[in-house]
């Protein structure tokens, strides 16, 4: 009994230690005045790596999710003669929930795992230590640009996902199933509020961006520098990020839309 309690206590302390370490890690990476001349090219390169290179998967997923949503919505709504409301259903589902959540999950799988593997490999091949020995802080040189690129890229990817999703839904509902396009757009515009729907979705995407990027870079930096260690860190990034996104989504939705 005592041994079990001790084990639980030790696990709790370990979890707290990881949180403390990762908090200090982000603070040391981001607090301070950056040298813009040197930091900007690094940031742009990472923005390309995590943002632009994630575009194909985001665009294709957004398109298909919009199409499926429209198709499913239509088959349900048509029984009640309300198929004209498919635009409203599509937009609200995308901007409030699916856009930020699915983009964050895809981002964790595509960019997050890649960040973890890249940083883990830099550690395994002593490139991180080599930077330290050259008098360059790897937290400022390697970690900060990747973190910031993640923060900036994901909200933009969410917006692109939403736009492409709406277009995919339009193709199915209007061009294929024959919903009148005037009511498709007008229902969408009348029911979607900029602040309570669109902005709340953007806020969600910023929170998810912070969580996923933080988890990804920390797991890479904290990984055991072996092939097995890097593999485990990459898996942890995807699993922890997905769970964090889904958990945070529930909390944020309750705060934003729960009218208790």
């Amino acid at each position: 009994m005592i041994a079990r309690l001790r084990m639980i206590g030790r696990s709790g302390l370990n979890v707290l230690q990881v949180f403390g370490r990762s908090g200090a890690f982000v603070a040391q990476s981001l607090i301070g005045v950056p040298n813009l001349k040197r930091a900007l090219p690094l940031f742009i390169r990472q923005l390309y790596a995590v943002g632009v290179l994630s575009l194909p998967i985001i665009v294709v997923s957004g398109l298909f999710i919009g199409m499926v949503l429209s198709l499913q919505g239509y088959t349900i709504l048509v029984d009640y003669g309300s198929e004209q409301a498919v635009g409203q259903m599509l937009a609200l589902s995308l901007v409030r929930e699916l856009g930020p959540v699915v983009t964050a999950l895809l981002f964790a799988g595509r960019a997050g795992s890649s960040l973890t593997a890249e940083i883990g490999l830099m550690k395994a091949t002593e490139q991180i230590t080599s930077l330290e020995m050259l008098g360059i802080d790897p937290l400022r040189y390697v970690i900060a640009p990747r973190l910031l690129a993640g923060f900036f890229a994901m909200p933009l990817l969410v917006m692109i996902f939403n736009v492409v999703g709406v277009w995919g839904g339009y193709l199915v509902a209007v061009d294929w199933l024959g919903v009148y396009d005037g009511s498709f757009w007008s229902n969408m515009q009348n029911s979607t509020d900029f602040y309570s729907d669109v902005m709340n979705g953007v806020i969600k995407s910023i929170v998810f961006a912070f969580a996923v990027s933080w988890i990804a870079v920390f797991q890479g930096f904290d990984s055991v520098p072996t092939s097995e260690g890097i593999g485990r860190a990459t898996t942890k990034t995807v699993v922890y990020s997905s769970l964090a996104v889904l958990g945070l989504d529930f909390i944020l939705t309750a705060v934003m839309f729960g009218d208790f």
Partner: protein
Amino acid sequence: MRKRKDDMADQVDNIVEVRGLSFMRGDRVIFENASFDFPRGKITAIMGPSGTGKTTLLRLISGQIKPDAGTILVNGQNVPELTRNELYEMRRTMGMLFQSGALFTDRTVYENVAFPLREHTNLPEAMIRDIVLMKLQAVGLRGARNLMPSELSGGMTRRAALARTIALDPDMIMYDEPFAGQDPIAMGVLMELIKLLNQALSLTSLVVSHDIHETASIADKLYVISEGKVIGEGAPKELMNSESPLVRQFMQGLPDGPVPFHYPAQDFEDDMLGGES
């Protein structure tokens, strides 16, 4: 008066002084009250059996890890007491050559050598080019400047990393197993480079190595460490004829001695007749 003058002449100027160093990894003692002196301008080698803490010593000197007790003075500064910024400032005066080379894999050889110059100086690109080509010429890789690290052999990788290490003209270079896994030609080239650079650039070199004869041929001073303690110290010739059986076993590469050939086990005869695996 004359005696005092002689005493001063006898005093060696040490770039690194380690006193009372203790360091544990978990429950395992790596160093226990160990002391080292690394004289300025000389090549000092640290040798000892595997897992005895040679690389750990380099990491302690460069401030990558902190000791449990003791002082590590580098140019008079106590490394464990330095702040993060002071530590990075100090590291600009020292270089480290890693066993793997640790070149940045997404940059060419030229870009790797230019990297510290671009990060730490505001020199114009033309001057950076001149310095990079001089450093690459010194290690014999001027013609390989456009190659990527993946296109280099093991020896070339270490030479390119050496060029990057000397780019900022450090006071001291630490070599971590520079000869490991090298063919005789590459080993000869690296030995010659360590010796030449030490003289030409007035450097101080700390070499961690297992290769006794190669290291002894270039080192001015040797340390042999084992089980957290310094068991031998002095000029290579002195240590070759040391009275300590452990030092002699290590220096002469004897298969059996204080470090036994056999891993501890039960009696051979009992084991054979016992029939258990």
